């Protein structure tokens, strides 16, 4: 991430500059007239590449390579490689560099939480989303209208990233990964206690804990450390790099050790973190009488846990649950809500009942980070199997 910070300022994002389609259109009429009648869809529209701000000529979390992109956070369904200029938090840029290599985009520019960047007539501010390290909501302001693209977010506490900051806005754009009222995430600490109790009851069994490698894994370790668990936590090879990255950003995770080839038999009573896909992999076989644990918001529903053969489901989510989605929408004071992906139908129904204008965007391409975890597992499986 040091390298990302050292990058030259991205030409695409110099303050006050905008060469996009929006500015050309803008020249055609008097700016003041235009801004008076501005609507949300002038600030943000839906294109095949994803959400697009014509006034600033920039995409947000684009699904395919674009000239200029704002990235909310490092999960691979939001942060893709191959864009021209990228504006994101330093942490997100570091995560992207770690995943895709230093040349993941033409030019990268880091932005601090709360710092206002002007792109043509649009003010852009990144604010904490509480989802993973570096995750941000993006506030777009133009013509007195405020639009917030929240990316992925959660409201529950997380020792590895700053908490979500509610922002007053006119239009709130939200995910709905867990947009059904059955998804009420319990206190994550209580779920960690379940794991610790199981370790005490089955000290001869290795506890394989499946977790998404970015965000979830670090949060789990940090929560275990908060609860006084000071033994080494073992890592699947695919987990190591991002753990180091978190530590480099000043988040202590304690004694972490890679599972060495041939050492699996000796890990009785240990916690072993791995990508969810690895739980069913050849890799998982040689641990002593393993307990298969999986930490995810999906574990709230029993059939989902059983489907994966999970024996110790831990309901720990980095996405907002139903109650958090509803209370967040209320807090923003938005009169209009767009739902990007997830269980859109239920949340749109709720908004409508609350008297809010709501529309589902039916955006394909954003997952629940699960796709990401599986992808990582596949590459990990391709490593020497030992």
């Amino acid at each position, binding site marked *: 991430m040091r390298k990302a910070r050292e990058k030259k300022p991205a030409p695409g994002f110099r303050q006050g500059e905008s060469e996009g389609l929006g500015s050309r259109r803008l020249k055609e009429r008097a700016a003041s007239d235009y801004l008076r009648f501005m609507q949300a869809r002038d600030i943000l529209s839906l294109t095949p590449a994803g959400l697009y701000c014509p006034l600033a000529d920039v995409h947000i979390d684009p699904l395919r390579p674009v000239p200029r992109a704002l990235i909310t956070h490092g999960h691979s369904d939001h942060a893709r490689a191959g864009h021209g200029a990228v504006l994101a938090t330093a942490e997100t840029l570091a995560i992207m560099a770690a995943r895709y290599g230093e040349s993941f985009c033409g030019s990268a520019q880091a932005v601090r939480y709360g710092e206002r960047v002007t792109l043509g007539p649009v003010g852009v501010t990144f604010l904490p989303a509480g989802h993973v390290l570096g995750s941000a909501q993006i506030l777009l302001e133009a013509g007195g209208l405020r639009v917030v693209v929240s990316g992925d977010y959660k409201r529950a506490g997380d020792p590895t990233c700053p908490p979500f900051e509610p922002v007053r806005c006119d239009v709130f754009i939200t995910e709905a990964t867990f947009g059904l009222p059955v998804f009420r995430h319990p206190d994550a600490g209580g779920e960690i206690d379940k794991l610790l109790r199981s370790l005490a009851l089955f000290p001869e069994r290795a506890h394989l804990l499946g977790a998404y490698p970015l965000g979830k894994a670090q949060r789990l370790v940090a929560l275990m450390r908060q609860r006084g668990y000071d033994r080494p936590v073992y890592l699947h090879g695919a987990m190591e790099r991002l753990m180091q990255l978190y530590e480099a950003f000043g988040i202590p995770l304690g004694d972490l050790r890679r599972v060495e080839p041939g050492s699996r038999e000796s890990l009785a009573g240990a916690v072993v973190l791995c990508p969810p896909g690895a739980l069913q992999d050849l890799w998982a076989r040689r641990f002593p009488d393993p307990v298969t644990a999986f930490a995810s918001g999906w574990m709230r529903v029993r059939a989902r846990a059983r489907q994966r*053969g999970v024996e110790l489901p831990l309901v720990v989510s980095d996405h907002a649950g139903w109650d958090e989605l509803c209370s967040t929408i209320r807090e923003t004071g938005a009169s209009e809500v767009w739902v990007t992906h997830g269980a859109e139908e239920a949340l749109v129904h709720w908004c409508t009942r609350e008297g809010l204008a709501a529309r589902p965007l039916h955006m394909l391409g954003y997952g629940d980070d699960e796709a990401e975890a599986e992808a990582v597992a596949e590459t990990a499986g391709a490593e020497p199997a030992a």
Partner: protein
Amino acid sequence: MNHFAELLDRLAFEPRRNAKLRLMEDFFHTTPDPERGYALAALTGGLSFRNAKPGLVRALIAERTDPVLFALSYDYVGDLSETVALMWPAPAPGGAGHNAAPPRLSDVVEGLSQTAKTELPGLMARWLDALDETGRWALLKLITGSLRIGVSARLAKTAVAALGGVDPNAVEELWHGLSPPYEPLFAWLEGRAERPESLVVAPFRPPMLSHPLDEEEFSRLDPADFCAEWKWDGIRIQAVRELTADGRRVVRLYSRTGEDITASFPDLCEDLLAQEAFVGTIDGELLVLRAGRVESFNVLQQRLNRKAITPRLMQEFPAHIRAYDLLAEGGEDLRPLPFVERRRRLEALVARLAGRRVDLSPLVPFASWEELAMARARPGEAGAGIDAEAVEGVMLKRRDSPYVPGRPKGLWYKWKHDPHLVDAVLMYAQRGHGRRSSYYSDYTFGLWRSGPEGDELVPVGKAYFGFTDEELKELDRFVRRETVNRFGPVREVIHTGERGLVLEVAFEGVQQSTRHKSGIAMRFPRINRIRWDKPPREADRLDTLARLLPRGERATTKAGKT
């Protein structure tokens, strides 16, 4: 209740028997009376709540949630209790029920038994308000009687027995004299009180079980030390008839696991009640007899599958006991006696019985193992007569064997029929459970039949055991390499005439099935051998199985199902 709910939650996901035991032991150890006793009752199926029906639960949630959101949620979760448990809105801070203490399991048991039906919705709502998601799930599963956590009553009793380091059979023997919350039982197991003497009339006595005969051991056994009898293909049962202190007659029928199944067989009970010559416990096989002939297990199953016991059902499928052993008579425990002595007492008893519901399972005479092997191969000619089809094999019992509950070594053996074998082609594979969840260990296989476009494979069964760990690895490798299609956890593997894998499948018999596309289901199929050498084209045809169907069932299957 939350503590118990957490146990249920953990048990529901834990596939390993030993781990389930450990979880329960830990719970019984750390939970006070009477909570653990009611938990034991719940785990052994000893609690039933008449008033609480799914309709009540639906009505409660309908008052509290938006119908559209409920429908979307139910659709996603797929289980009513679970949907309600997860959706139930938390009471508003400051409102009624906010931060109320969660009910204990004993509160729930007492509350449900003492509350009038009209008061029940209010009571339920207060409990649901006070519990967390897992607690609500457990409560709703418990009261609607749909708790499925993969724990048998026997396993729960085994966990309790471990508390006092006693044999589970010791708990089993006391069981029917005890009632929830079992405080005297826990007191005894923890060494705080004497063994609670069984108060029950007609108690269950855990049965003695046999070992499969392994051919090597066989050669070391002396035929003169053993009696042989037929192993009937029915349901092992214990029939107890006793008199209470005030002279009332009591009859109980128990399954092999100690489940009281008396209510399912009023015909048999009525007959036994009238048998004044009989006071004691018979170990035998439950069979259906028609016109003096033992019917197949398929026929017996038709009676067992029915919930309502109608006079018509009893007439059509008359229940019968074929007696193997006598465990007690006239208050005397016969179990320490040698088999031949018990057998003499049994023969004398059956001879005194009136009626036709109980008869004696005959001994099979033999002088050498060869002679017994002949009898086993042709039971019809060795004394089983018209009942030969219901013979599953032979039992060998040491003449001097006492009746020892459980599966003691070296006393009783079962020598079953050689299984049927068929060469089938592997078609689909699915991941296993628990420690096998990383392997493709459940195999669906098929046989050839002629279809509209020439020969085609039709699935005939599924097997998930019979192979060694080494073979499992090879099979798993084959599946991963030869996958042609994926459907969720299931992989379709290549199965053409030229390419694919032939499995030699062993099984005990066949029956008609509407569930299977082939119209035939195998009993107890398992992988006998992997035929890496055999091309799929040379595997067996469906007709091979159809020929094994009992005569009456053959025609319909041949007519063909698609």
